[in-house]
């Protein structure tokens, strides 16, 4: 056990962790990254598909390439990195779990999509030959394509919701291009197999209940689960940080600071992001806010942000009217030609057209100083964000 002192300790060396650390170093403070795996990059290292870096580096990169860009920046910034080091207590961290419970037996052959991705892309093993994917999250969609490429047959993706959980571009590129069926409003109602998975029963939802008569069986040896990620927040919780029941991430103010002063949260541990680029962007701002906090630059006034009609959550949960910043939100509805409406004291302060919204696509909004110029703020004013 050694003791080291840094201005900022970043827990987790994925996209967000590295971006935050680089920003802290850029502003001249000392910083260390603590990473539990034996290399930086986090989950990016198993995401060998393209689509990373369009925002951050203005070019389309694979996950490991995107991570390498950040690793170079971390090295250039002279940041201390502790690998294979797990933080036991205090402060913030990274990534997710997938939750799934289905009736039937518990044979071998059931994997999370993330585990299958690791097995194929990093370890070089094929987890199965005949695959059904439960949930249409992005990792599941990407693995549908990946498993097809390694010679497996993907028999279908089963999604409980009437709309896909993943990005539209992944539906097109990973399912449609390979003629893999997507069963919307369907559930895997049963898994069977004595030793290894032998078949699953798929049932359409009729009035929200699995319909037995229209159920059908798919023989398969493998089930991949892609039913959404939940931030892993053991550390934050143990430190006593307030957790939002909606995002399962920390509640943060306009400076990305949690309910415990000096602990900041960003990336997928705060809320699950669509793209690593967004996580990195958010983390860079968080690094800057942490520096500002150390330098005792704190906001004079913060206004609470409320998720209004058709909005699941807005992150962060507060805005500093003197220096408004970017916020991310997720909708509860699927809609074309939607309208984002922001109100303070029931007065519309900003509106924005959104050509298409769906829960799986994060919406980002940036307020400018001009936007907030004419706000009349009462002591109890709230900024309400809704989508119509």
């Amino acid at each position, binding site marked *: 056990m050694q003791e080291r002192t840094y201005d900022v300790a970043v827990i987790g060396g994925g996209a967000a962790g590295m971006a935050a650390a680089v920003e802290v170093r850029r502003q001249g403070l000392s910083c260390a990254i603590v990473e539990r795996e034996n290399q930086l990059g986090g989950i990016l290292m198993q995401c060998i598909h393209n689509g990373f870096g369009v925002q951050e580096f203005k070019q389309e990169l694979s996950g490991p390439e995107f991570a390498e860009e950040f690793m170079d920046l971390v090295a250039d910034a002279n940041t201390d990195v502790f690998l294979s080091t797990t933080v036991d207590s205090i402060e913030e961290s990274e990534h997710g779990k997938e939750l799934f419970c289905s009736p039937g*037996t518990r044979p071998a052959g059931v994997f999370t999509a*993330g585990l299958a991705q690791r*097995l194929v892309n990093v370890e070089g093993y094929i987890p199965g030959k005949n695959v059904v994917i439960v949930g249409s999250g992005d990792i599941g969609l990407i693995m549908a394509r990946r498993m097809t490429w390694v010679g497996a047959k993907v028999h279908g993706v089963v999604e409980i919701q009437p709309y896909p959980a993943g990005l539209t571009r992944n539906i097109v590129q990973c399912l449609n291009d390979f003629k893999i069926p997507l069963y919307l409003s369907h559930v895997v109602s049963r898994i069977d197999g004595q030793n290894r998975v032998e078949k699953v029963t798929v049932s359409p939802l009729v009035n929200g209940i699995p319909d037995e008569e229209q159920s059908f069986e798919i023989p398969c040896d493998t089930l991949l689960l892609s039913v959404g990620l939940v931030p892993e927040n053991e550390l934050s919780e143990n430190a006593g940080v307030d957790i939002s029941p909606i995002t399962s991430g920390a509640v943060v103010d306009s400076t990305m600071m949690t309910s415990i002063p000096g602990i900041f949260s960003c990336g997928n541990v705060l809320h699950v992001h669509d793209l690593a680029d967004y996580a990195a962007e958010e983390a860079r701002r968080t690094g800057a806010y942490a520096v500002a906090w150390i330098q005792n630059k704190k906001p004079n006034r913060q206004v609470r942000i409320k998720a209004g009609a058709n909005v699941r959550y807005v992150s962060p949960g507060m805005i500093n009217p003197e220096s408004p910043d970017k916020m991310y939100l997720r909708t509860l509805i699927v809609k074309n030609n939607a309208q984002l409406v922001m109100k303070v004291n029931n007065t519309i302060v900003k509106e924005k057209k959104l050509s298409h919204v769906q829960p799986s696509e994060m919406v980002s909004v940036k307020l400018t100083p001009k936007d907030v110029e004419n706000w009349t703020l009462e002591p109890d004013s709230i900024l309400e964000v809704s989508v119509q």
Partner: protein
Amino acid sequence: MQSKSNAVGDRTKVDIAIIGAGISGACIARQLSAYEAEVALIEKEADVSFGVSKANSGIIHGGFHHSPKYLKTQLEIRGNLMYDRLQRELDFPFSRCGILVVALNDEEMKYIGHLYNQGVENGAIGIEMCSRERMFELEPKLESDCVGGLHAPGGGVIEPYRFVFSVVESAVKNGVHLLREFEVVKAERSGEKHIVHAADGRVVEARYVVNAAGLFADKISSIFGAEEFQITPRKGEYYLLDRKTKACPNRVLFPVPTKVSKGMLVIPTVEGTVLIGPTAEEIEDKTDLSTNADKLSQILDQARKMVPSVSQTDVIAAFSGLRPALLPEGDFYIDISEKAPNFIQVAGIQSPGLTAAPAIGEYVKDLLKKAGCRLTEKPDYDPIVKKLPRIRDYSPFEADELLKKDAAYGNLICRCEKISEAEIVAAIHAGHTTLDGVKYFTRAQMGRCQGGFCSYKIIKLIMRETGMEYDQITKNGRESVVLTGRL
């Protein structure tokens, strides 16, 4: 534990063969390992405890549920008292947290009186009738309708599979031969001996045979030409709640029992998670371990009747287990066979089998003596199993010493349950070379990600430590292969 040797024609000659390495067989084997006798413990699965013993409530019962007329009641009382010493010797997770039976109306409270009297008659130590106020003092999370109940401070919880592993480890250390993947298909007499054949051609010769085959005790009895009886599998489904749940009680909570079962419980497991269940459903198929959606809501409803804060969002796993019931009486059948020579029946060991198991070990030892088996005490019997360090019990400051001895304690493999590489390697070296074997030995893969983040690391460790190929790695033996190809 010794490594596998599955060669056709392998012949093991022993004085006593125990068929079935579940909780009963394990305790009998350990008991006998204290005596000068060659003992074989035979298991058809890839690891010990993979049958009935791996999926049950894990309760050390309080001695009040059954009438004193039953053998199981006497063994329950005796077995319960043996656990403290066993824990000191074998170092398995065990907590004497106590048991509460919750009465929700006056009718149920009357039945509590009956349970109390039964417990007193059985000799259960420390049981008390509780007022409503006393119940809430003991368990603040109770449903507000609770009118009173029963408190049995001698009850507790263990991890059943972990207990079996420790007991078998101790038995093997004292000379018991453990034969895994040995499915008994045929038996014959040759002079004074039983010749026991496995499906793969291996043979065990034994003067005495103990039938502790759990669900298949009826089949084994018939193979040996002993008594005809039928074991009925009674399925119990369980749901496991994350340790973050707000519904974790201080003690095991029982409802007032019904005629067929002790009802559905809320169990604070010894490792901090919460188990709810089980259902009780008589079925036909002894391999049917499926779970069913309608049972989940049933279990949740029942659990919420006692602890309203039980939430479906806390569920991290579902599983089911089968109780080997000998109907209609449901008592244990432990006796010297009247039909087959030198054959001891240990059948129908359903609840409270886990509690009774150490006492079953003693009881069977006495039956063997009665049947003419000579048992003299072994001077070098060593009841102690060395305690394995667990990194989760150490603070970062304390861990330094441990890491100096073995740096692998610093490499966390299972992040949910905080299990290090060193602990997983110890499991593999102890002979647990399947994913489930490692899981039950160490708890790795048992947390909320259910192996999503660590199982590939465990697969690599098993390959590294045993030299097995990727396609030999199974979840729990047989055809349960995990990886089907390589790039």
